[in-house]
């Protein structure tokens, strides 16, 4: 690998931007492709597929065997609401490799006793969220069930283009939430991005089961190609 390529790779990784290094393993020829340049690349389909799966692998193109090494940012999860569901969800997400942060201004909920080893921020979303540099590689879960907390948090998640946005609440609650968020400037497309009621429909009852349903929905959103997502949701 050329020094320049390594340097560029480290710059992109530090900025949490995905890149793929394409190597012809027969002769060592190599190039780095930034995600922003995929569309214009002859290997667009292969690059996009590998990045979506978050998996490195080999492809054969024009008689050449190429290794595509995917360097995707570490997935993160921000949970707004230090509630019972979150106590189950935080360790579950960590076991899947997510960096987890829990935000809740209610100090009775956001206590280290309830969330051992999880970074906790006992502040309102407008204070807590901006310094987290939330980005596309973030799963955003709003589960306080309190519009004062969930609504501003969701507006922030829209602005940061999180790959998954989920919010607790029945269809009725969600319809009201949609009206409130639109009144605050959210577009219909933003509202449509919210997974609500949150989690895959697996008949979850207990907080831990709901956490499994949420985690499964996040995994499906991350890994399935777009056309299959509907199936998973049904």
């Amino acid at each position, binding site marked *: 690998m*050329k020094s320049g390529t*390594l340097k560029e790779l480290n710059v992109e990784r530090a900025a949490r931007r995905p890149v793929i290094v394409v*190597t012809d393993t027969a002769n060592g020829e190599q190039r780095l492709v930034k995600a922003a340049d995929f569309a214009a690349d002859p290997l667009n389909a292969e690059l996009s597929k590998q990045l979506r799966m978050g998996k490195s692998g080999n492809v054969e193109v024009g008689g050449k065997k190429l290794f595509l090494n995917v360097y995707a940012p570490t997935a993160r999860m921000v949970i707004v609401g230090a509630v019972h569901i979150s106590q189950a969800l935080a360790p579950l997400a960590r076991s899947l490799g997510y960096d987890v942060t829990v935000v809740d201004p209610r100090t009775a909920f956001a206590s280290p006793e309830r969330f051992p080893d999880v970074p906790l921020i006992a502040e309102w979303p407008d204070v807590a969220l901006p310094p987290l540099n939330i980005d596309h590689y973030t799963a955003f879960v709003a589960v306080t069930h309190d519009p004062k907390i969930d609504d501003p948090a969701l507006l922030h998640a829209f602005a940061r283009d999180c790959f998954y946005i989920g919010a607790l609440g029945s269809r009725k609650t969600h319809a009201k939430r949609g009206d409130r968020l639109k009144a605050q400037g959210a577009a219909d497309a933003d509202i449509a991005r919210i997974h609500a009621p949150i989690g895959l429909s697996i008949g979850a009852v207990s907080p831990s089961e709901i956490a499994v349903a949420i985690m499964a929905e996040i995994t499906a959103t991350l890994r399935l190609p777009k056309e299959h997502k509907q199936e998973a949701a049904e």
Partner: protein
Amino acid sequence: MLDRDEDILKAAEDWQKAGHGVALATVVETWGSAPRPAGSNLVINDDGTFLGSVSGGCVEGAVVAEAMDVIESGKPRMLEFGVADETAWNVGLSCGGTIRVFVEKVG
């Protein structure tokens, strides 16, 4: 997770800046049960210092030795380790998998 890839690759960059010869080893293919997935990196400098992993520790020693040659020659090399390999008795994967590791010089 320890030794995140970004830290490993940053170390490679820093070593090179400090004047070291550096090699990058990458798992490019796996069969059966292999401990580290394709894309995993191990970086090695000319002191024999290394960071990261391409297996659960079974073949790193052999990769580091090959990396010394690659740093010297500048020519990339493909290595294969597995139970089917004759060297399995020495440095094979105890888990029964097979891996191919691409070793290249940085710079």
